[in-house]
């Protein structure tokens, strides 16, 4: 039984809402990372650039994982 049949729409709606909360939290973190990194970079401090890029990519991977699950729900 696939996820589409396993969950009625009301349940899928709950899952998507929860997913949206997580995605928004991660995006706020990424926005903060980007502004802090840009500030440091323009100030001549480049030490933080690589760790911040790695952290942002991890955030993107988490979001991509959630998106993958969203597509799995649709199948």
């Amino acid at each position, binding site marked *: 039984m696939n996820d*589409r*049949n396993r969950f*009625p*729409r*009301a349940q*899928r*709606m709950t899952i*998507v*809402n929860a*997913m*949206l909360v997580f*995605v*928004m939290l*991660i*995006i706020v973190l*990424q*926005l903060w*990372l*980007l502004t802090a*990194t*840009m500030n440091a*970079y*323009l*100030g*001549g*401090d*480049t030490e933080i*650039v*690589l760790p*911040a*890029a790695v952290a*942002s*990519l991890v*955030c*993107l991977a988490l*979001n*991509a994982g*959630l*998106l993958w699950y*969203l597509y799995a729900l*649709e199948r």
Partner: protein
Amino acid sequence: MIAKDDQKRDDAHTSSAYRAPGDIERHTVPPDGRPLDEQPRWRQDFPIDWPQDEYVSRRDLVKFMVLTSLAFATGQLWILAKTLIRRQETFPMLPVARVDDVAVGGHLVFQYPAESGPRLLVRTGGAEFVAYDQQCTHLLCPVVPHVDEGMLHCPCHNGYFDLESGRVIAGPPRRPLPRVTLEIRDGVVYATGMEDQAT
């Protein structure tokens, strides 16, 4: 009577195959009468029923937010790429002026590297020179040296920079002036590189 007719009409338009088990929501029946899962993609993505429409819009918002996440990560990678390129950047050694060409306390505007923004060479003592980017780090106005006061002044918004280090003393600028490294050989002042200074 009217209510009964409505109920009959609703029942006629509601397919039992269209309802998921346990789903009490009523669905509009497509013209061909097949279940929603078997409908073309465009019909699934532009539903008539409110609950399905809310689900689709929320789902699409999640997708758009993940796209935004991709944009932020791309921005981070762009900053990383700029940092790596800057680290690998090499500067030519360029003669700027003869030592005697600039009086003590005097200054000279030059371009370094060629075709870049203006730089400012200031003679602060006998054989002491400093050079900075001439553009203020606030809003790019040209800075003016005040050697006797030991500072560089931006007249646009009254920004002040230390003449010896390029660091901000007062005013709206938050970042120091990028410095041009210099070398004096055989009475000639050479520019040898650029360095961004941490705040």
